[in-house]
């Protein structure tokens, strides 16, 4: 939770520093910049992106990592309120929450950022090759380089340690090479670049420096340093990656043969206190190993045998178990529960793995390649950062936080997000990033908007009714285009095209000076449409559009022909055909440009209030975070009191008392002037859209609000198994909690207790893991051990899933004599009543024989199940998954947003999770909601659908296909039914236009005529 506001309004700085440009840092920066704070983003490498930029695919959706990340990179790099400082580190920090002063050290890039256009000619000419860190040193890059093709900023950097010129200079000799400078047509190389110290004032600091991958070199038994065919999981990501050392071809590095058998070895550098000091579980390795195995099978041209050697399969997240089962049953990935002894390299480079199976038998099997699933360690910079900021680190050098303030460090105003705290996956890093942004905004709310910048443009010229006057600018991109495509010929051809009144060739159309010249040409030639033939509109369209705006032209009067990425770069050996294609692409762009129309963004008023459905911990935290920012919050709770399921919980996995926290939270919520609580209330009726919802409650009240946060929670299921409700000593999990609190003495007299895990979880009916049960069972076992150290406590489990630092509880329980017996779904424990006493029979996994226990009582870790979500999902028009948990917009990068704008989800309504994660998600949902609520009005781009009401017959086909709930048929005043587009929700996908049988629905900027004219131009040329 955010700290309370100590300063009078206006006495805090409306800027935030984000340290680390990985996915967590990026998300935090975007959230803050979108809610009225200026962000200084500090990244020590030459580009943002972090580890996610180097991953091939992401689980459990198998999305291409770079494909989903790169739009965020671009958004961050281009945001007017994000000051991106690469090659920069913190030097020192002074001040306190609300008003920090940070000194930064900016290392020289030796390339002028203003002049470099990222054309890359320098790198093709640079004679010095060095290992490429982005590809895990498996191939080479040049001494002048960008870390990866999609890097933001796309500016080259000279690696001083590798550069021949600097090497000579640093050795006291005369530097000669300078080839890069000779070939740089833009004069961007700056050998005299110097280190700078920059002072920045900020109100809060968010630390997201990420993690370091474990280095397995020290493990002799795994042959990592000796065999090229033993690779780390990060190496393997690059081997799978299309931009990796093998260009995405699955091959061994020793002989480039395609492997037929690959083994993954889990827990390398995790859960290991013998070979290293990492007692914790790295939380993501099980899932990434399964993903790598599945993707490798997809890549392989021959049938590929994949085997994963593991201790416990920890697939505890949303849809993870289903992914695991699919890998096992459909993809044929083999899972071998084992302990690895050694790996031997064979004569042909293959590897023989010697391991102990579950029964303790020593076995061996040969593989072509071995992948080590390396764990996460604290960032190498963690200690340095802690020293400079004063924050506390734990024994593993992860940032210390509490379960109740999961993103607050020990220093007020300094927050931690992502793997800086402990190992975690991408969605939880993203949630923590949003949560940290939410917590920071709570304190800084009085200074919102005080330091942000806004672009001012001249009024737009009215071009309606004018004949198109098109200007065409053909770029050489240094030699990138001009050396293949005959640019003068393309320019000459452009002059012959209809409506073209001006044509110009540029060396670099995107350079600052060309942009200034272009703005003058627009006016001189009285242009009303502009075509640039250059690189990709995905990277450069916004830049050119801004020049149009600065010249008083609507930005939608622009079209770009991609004659570099789609032409000169991919047809390097066919200059004549490339030139012909470039001409066609220009003709297509010109034809489209002639039909382009100016579009106005749509502005809609909004109600600056939030409706929170569900008054559990998640709902209360999100509501309070929004209320503390000065916004109105309505919390609707079905029961007669706030608190939800947290009322049943005793303590967090870190041992903090839940009751005290919940009591304080309830009081704070109840007393807050901006919060209205409606008890015994549910949603009866809801209408409207983002910014403008009206909701009627079952209690009769009507509330108006701009956003909705769904935090309806979940509950523990009942069961018919194991004599539950048939024998008084068979309890559900929280009944034991209650007994530990209420009657410890009586409990202490028990001689034996059995705790059964996965009751109703991970079976055919509920193919998911309830996530919290393993840790809960172990904590209760430890408490029983304290009550009576002689008590025999048995935990019957399927996999122990104490992820992250929860693993330490598991180790403690084992050391204290808690007995863990593993069972299979096919061979569940049998509970009987014999002479009034309980009798449990379970097959011991080591002995392979049934054993019988006579416990005093049994507790069942029953599954966590959602309640009443079907009805609510229909009312809110948001999806639920097969297990009836609410489905977020994107599992990786939009973990608390719904696809429909203005709706958010947090807590167990999303998936079972412990209280700390619910609080994180709640803070994140509040931060995301603030992105909507902190604006004065809702503004959307003009590229949206529209309906010609004369042609519309009100059939509703458009409404059926719209994924965003943006189009609906309604009765007009005259009684005629027609479709109506809610521009605020429309994403311009065009599904309605395709579905419409009469041609009434169409998408602005991508109208039928505007698309088809390109087809005509392409084929007519």
């Amino acid at each position, binding site marked *: 939770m955010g700290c309370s506001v100590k300063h009078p309004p206006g006495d805090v700085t409306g800027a935030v520093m984000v340290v680390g440009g990985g996915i967590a840092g990026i998300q935090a920066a975007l959230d803050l910049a979108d809610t009225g704070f200026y962000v200084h983003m500090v990244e020590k490498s030459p580009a943002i992106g972090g580890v996610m930029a180097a991953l091939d695919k992401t689980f459990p959706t198998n999305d291409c990592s*770079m*494909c989903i990340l*790169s*739009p965020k990179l671009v958004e961050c790099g281009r945001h007017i309120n994000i000051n991106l400082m690469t090659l920069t580190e913190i030097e020192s920090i002074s001040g306190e929450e609300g008003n920090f002063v940070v000194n930064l050290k900016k290392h020289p890039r030796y390339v002028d950022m203003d002049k470099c256009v990222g054309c890359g000619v320098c790198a093709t000419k640079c004679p010095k090759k060095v290992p490429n860190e982005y590809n895990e040193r498996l191939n080479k890059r040049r001494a002048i380089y960008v870390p990866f*093709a*999609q890097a933001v900023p796309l500016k080259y950097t000279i690696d001083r340690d590798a550069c021949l010129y600097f090497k000579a200079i640093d050795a006291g000799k005369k530097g000669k090479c300078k080839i890069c400078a000779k070939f740089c047509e833009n004069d961007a190389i700056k050998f005299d670049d110097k280190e700078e110290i920059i002072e920045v004032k900020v109100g809060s600091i968010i630390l997201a420096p990420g993690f370091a991958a474990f280095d397995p070199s020290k493990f002799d038994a795994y042959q990592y340093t000796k065999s090229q065919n033993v690779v780390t999981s990060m190496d393997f990501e690059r081997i799978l990656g*299309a*931009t990796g050392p093998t*260009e995405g071809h699955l091959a061994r590095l020793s002989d480039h043969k395609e492997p037929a058998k690959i083994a993954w070895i889990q827990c390398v550098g995790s859960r290991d206190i013998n070979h290293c000091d990492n007692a914790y579980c790295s939380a993501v390795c099980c899932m990434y190993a399964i993903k790598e195995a599945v993707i490798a099978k997809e890549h392989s041209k021959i049938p590929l045998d994949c085997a994963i050697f593991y201790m416990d399969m920890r697939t505890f997240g949303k849809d993870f178990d289903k992914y695991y089962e699919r890998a096992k049953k459909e993809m044929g990935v083999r899972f071998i529960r084992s302990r690895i002894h050694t790996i031997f390299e064979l004569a042909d480079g293959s590897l023989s793995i010697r391991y102990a199976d579950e029964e303790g038998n020593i076995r061996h099997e040969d593989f072509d390649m071995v992948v080590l699933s390396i764990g996460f360690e604290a960032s190498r910079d963690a200690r340095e950062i802690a020293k400079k900021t004063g924050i506390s680190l734990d024994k593993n050098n992860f940032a210390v936080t509490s379960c109740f303030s999961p993103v607050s460090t020990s220093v007020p105003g300094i927050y931690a997000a992502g793997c800086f705290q402990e190992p975690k996956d991408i969605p939880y890093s993203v949630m923590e990033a949003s949560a940290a942004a939410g917590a920071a905004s709570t304190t800084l709310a009085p200074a919102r908007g005080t330091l942000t910048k806004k672009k001012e443009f001249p009024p737009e010229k009215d071009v309606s009714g004018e004949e198109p006057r098109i200007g065409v600018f053909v770029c050489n991109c240094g030699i990138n285009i001009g050396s293949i495509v005959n640019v003068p010929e393309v320019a000459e051809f452009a002059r012959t095209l209809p409506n073209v009144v001006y044509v110009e060739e540029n060396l670099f159309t995107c350079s600052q000076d060309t942009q200034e010249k272009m703005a003058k040409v627009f006016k001189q030639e009285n242009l009303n449409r502009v075509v640039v033939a250059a690189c*990709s*509109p*995905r*990277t450069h369209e916004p830049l050119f559009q801004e020049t149009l705006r600065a010249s008083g032209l609507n930005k939608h009067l622009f079209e770009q022909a*991609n004659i*570099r*990425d*789609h*032409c000169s*770069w*991919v*047809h*390097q*050996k*066919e200059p004549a*055909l*490339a030139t*012909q*294609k470039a001409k*066609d*692409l220009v003709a*297509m762009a010109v034809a489209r440009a002639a039909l382009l129309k100016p579009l106005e963004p749509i502005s809609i008023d909004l109600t600056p209030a939030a409706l929170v459905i569900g008054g559990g911990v998640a709902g209360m935290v999100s509501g309070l975070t929004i209320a503390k920012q000065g916004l109105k919050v309505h919390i609707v709770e079905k029961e007669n009191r706030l608190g939800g399921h947290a009322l049943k919980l005793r303590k967090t996995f870190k041992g903090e008392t839940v009751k005290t926290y919940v009591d304080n939270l309830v009081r704070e919520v109840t007393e807050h002037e901006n919060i209205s609580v409606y008890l015994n209330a549910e949603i009866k009726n809801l209408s409207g859209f983002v910014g403008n919802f009206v909701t009627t409650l079952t209690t009769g009240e009507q509330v108006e609000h701009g956003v909705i946060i769904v935090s309806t929670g979940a509950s523990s299921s009942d069961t018919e198994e194991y004599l539950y409700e048939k024998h008084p000593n068979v309890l559900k999990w929280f009944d034991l909690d209650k007994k530990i609190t209420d009657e410890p003495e009586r409990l202490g007299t028990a001689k034996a207790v059995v705790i059964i895990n996965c009751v109703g979880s991970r079976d055919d009916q509920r193919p998911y893991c309830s996530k919290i049960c393993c840790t809960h069972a172990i904590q209760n076992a430890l408490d029983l051990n304290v009550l009576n150290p002689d008590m025999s406590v048995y935990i019957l489990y399927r996999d122990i899933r104490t992820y992250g630092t929860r693993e330490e509880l598991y180790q403690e329980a084992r050391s204290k004599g808690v007995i863990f017996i593993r069972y299979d779904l096919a061979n569940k424990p049998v509970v009987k009543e014999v002479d009034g006493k309980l009798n449990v029979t379970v097959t011991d996994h080591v002995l392979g024989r049934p054993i019988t226990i006579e416990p005093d009582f049994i507790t069942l870790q029953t599954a966590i199940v959602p309640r009443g979500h079907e009805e609510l999902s229909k009312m809110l028009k948001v999806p639920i998954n097969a297990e009836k948990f609410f489905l977020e917009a994107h599992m990786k990068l939009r973990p608390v947003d719904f696809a429909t704008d203005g709706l958010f989800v947090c807590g167990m309504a999303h998936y079972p999770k412990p209280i700390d994660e619910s609080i994180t998600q709640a803070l994140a949902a509040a931060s995301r909601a603030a992105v909507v609520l902190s604006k004065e009005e809702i503004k959307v781009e003009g*590229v949206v659908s529209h309906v010609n009401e004369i042609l519309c017959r009100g059939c509703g086909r458009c409404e059926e*296909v719209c*994924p965003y709930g943006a189009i609906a048929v309604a009765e007009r005043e005259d009684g005629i039914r027609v479709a109506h587009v809610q521009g605020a929700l429309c*994403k*311009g*996908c*065009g*599904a309605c*236009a*395709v579905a419409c049988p009469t041609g009434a629905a169409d*998408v602005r900027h*991508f109208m*039928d005529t505007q*698309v*088809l004219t*390109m*087809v*005509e131009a*392409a*084929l*007519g040329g």
Partner: protein
Amino acid sequence: MNGEFEPMIIAFCCNWCAYAAADLAGISRMQYPANIRVIRVMCLGRINPNFILKAFQLGADGILVSG
């Protein structure tokens, strides 16, 4: 084109994935034949079957719809 049949292919690409992939092919300097013309749309949901028929009618030899 060398007297041999060379098809003219029209590709409709989604801005967010397939068009981005074509950009990446460029960045990676992957070489492919020059007889394809890419038309960018914001989503493949925009592709009306009529676009495809129209393209064939106008003389396209192949259509790639990718997103």
